[in-house]
């Protein structure tokens, strides 16, 4: 895959959270209870409040079972919270909509559609004419590095390629917020690193608001402006950490950067302390 062009280093890389920011998503005292059996309730999320500013890359980081994906599904409108509310630009979220584009760990591509058919699906649904939707989609497919694979079916692609298609498919209908649910969780380490780099390159072009769920500390620090650390049983916010690292970020430079290393170590320590305190069994 060729290296994607990114913004020149000469431009001042502002950390979006520091700009006079407007709230894109407001999560207000959200709790989620799941009925596990006839008489047993499981408190998946407890009293979560969080504001995500426009253009921010925010990761939700936590162990499995901490409800981080559920929180993302609530913002997506796929799941209704038991109590509390989530708002997008001041409007309460009640259903999914094209302003919030999900990318799932399971890819969830339409297997009966080709790569091009998948990416065109959203624009076609929104009434974009065939020729125009095809042209836009081809450009996106090229951007995610899959030029030449337009007429392949998903079953003919590797996991990493499938996730690239899923990202292009979501970007194609221009959501204002990207909701990424452990998008690289099912990929091998090498593919994962490449997709992280490419995601950052793509994101740095237009700086969409991103809500990114992960259980990898490295991934969260590398990508995010802000990390929301969660603990489980019940799922709560433990701490919010602002990641003050310059952009555009280069993986190889960052790995040698003591500030990056400190963030990773600090966050891992915080989770370890939580373990000792019985917060993360």
């Amino acid at each position, binding site marked *: 895959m060729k290296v994607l062009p990114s913004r020149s280093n000469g431009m001042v890389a502002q950390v979006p959270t520091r700009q006079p920011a407007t709230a894109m998503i407001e999560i207000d005292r959200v709790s989620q209870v799941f009925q596990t059996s006839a008489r047993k309730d499981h408190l998946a999320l407890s009293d979560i409040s969080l504001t995500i500013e426009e253009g921010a890359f925010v990761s939700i980081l936590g162990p499995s079972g901490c409800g981080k994906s559920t929180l993302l599904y609530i913002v997506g409108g796929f799941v209704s919270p038991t109590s509390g509310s989530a708002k997008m630009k001041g409007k309460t979220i009640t259903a999914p909509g094209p302003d919030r584009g999900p990318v799932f760990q399971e890819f969830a591509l*339409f297997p009966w559609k080709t790569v091009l058919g998948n990416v065109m699906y959203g624009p076609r649904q929104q009434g974009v004419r065939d020729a125009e939707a095809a042209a836009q989609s081809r450009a996106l497919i090229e951007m995610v590095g899959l030029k030449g694979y337009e007429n392949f079916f998903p079953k003919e692609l590797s996991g990493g390629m499938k996730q690239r298609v899923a990202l292009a498919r979501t970007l194609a209908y221009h959501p204002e917020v990207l909701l990424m649910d452990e998008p690289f969780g099912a990929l091998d380490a090498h593919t994962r690193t490449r997709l992280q780099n490419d995601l950052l390159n793509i994101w740095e072009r237009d700086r969409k608001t991103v809500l990114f769920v992960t259980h990898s500390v490295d991934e969260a620090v590398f990508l995010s402006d802000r990390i929301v650390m969660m603990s489980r049983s019940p799922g709560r916010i433990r701490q919010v950490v602002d990641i003050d690292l310059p952009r555009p970020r280069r993986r190889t430079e960052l790995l040698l950067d003591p500030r990056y290393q400190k963030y990773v170590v600090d966050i891992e320590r915080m989770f370890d302390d939580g373990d000792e305190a019985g917060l993360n069994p």
Partner: protein
Amino acid sequence: MISPTAIGRRIAPLLACIGLLAAWQVAALALKNDSFPTALEAMRAVPAILGDKEALINILASLRRMAIGFAAAVAVSIPLGLLMGRSRAVAAFFNPLLMVIYPVPKAALMPIIMLWLGVGDIAKTLVIFLGVSLPVIYHSFEGAKAVEEKMLWSGAAMGLSAAQRLIRIVLPAALPEILTGCRTGLVLALITMITSEMIARQSGAGNILFNALDMGQYDTVFAMIIIVGAMGIGLDAAFERVRARLVRWSEPQFDMPLSFS
């Protein structure tokens, strides 16, 4: 270039046919029974039947009933099965009903249906309809149930309504499973077609067969078995071709295709 294994796969069913006919021929010659003609005698009677106008009209009437019964069953069963697979309320309503109907041999309902609807086309088509419906409903239901939730969420995020998701996501996603049901249904249509004509002896391929049996024309009986069997094999092979084309995007389920295509 066709690989040797591909050639083998193509001619294997043909060899099986020839083997079966040869075994029949040998058995018939050895037994020397009047009611068991040899394969050659039976095959010689095939052109006679197919050349007879009366017989052809009967066979075509059978095929017409079968086509109508099959098409109607598919048209009703696919939407019903898909709705059952995606809605608990619909499933809860229809499941008990289908569980009761499922194990009842549809031919056993024939006397009642004849009593109500006579021995004509309607009664026979209805039995075919019932025979085809259940496997198609079952497979559509299973297919719809197995559709990935995240795929539907992706569609919802693009702005597809619930009805659009059912038609544009659940239906294509469940198609491989639906077509498996249709294939079973097609063979069942042929079986119920013959059975219905066996019970309501008025017209059709089954009628020719059993009339010949009554009159002791055993070569005609066996020739009809060959004709009906060939129809089944032909229909199944044709359907399998269509199926394979429609779902070429899906992950293959079997290594060895169970068909003559």
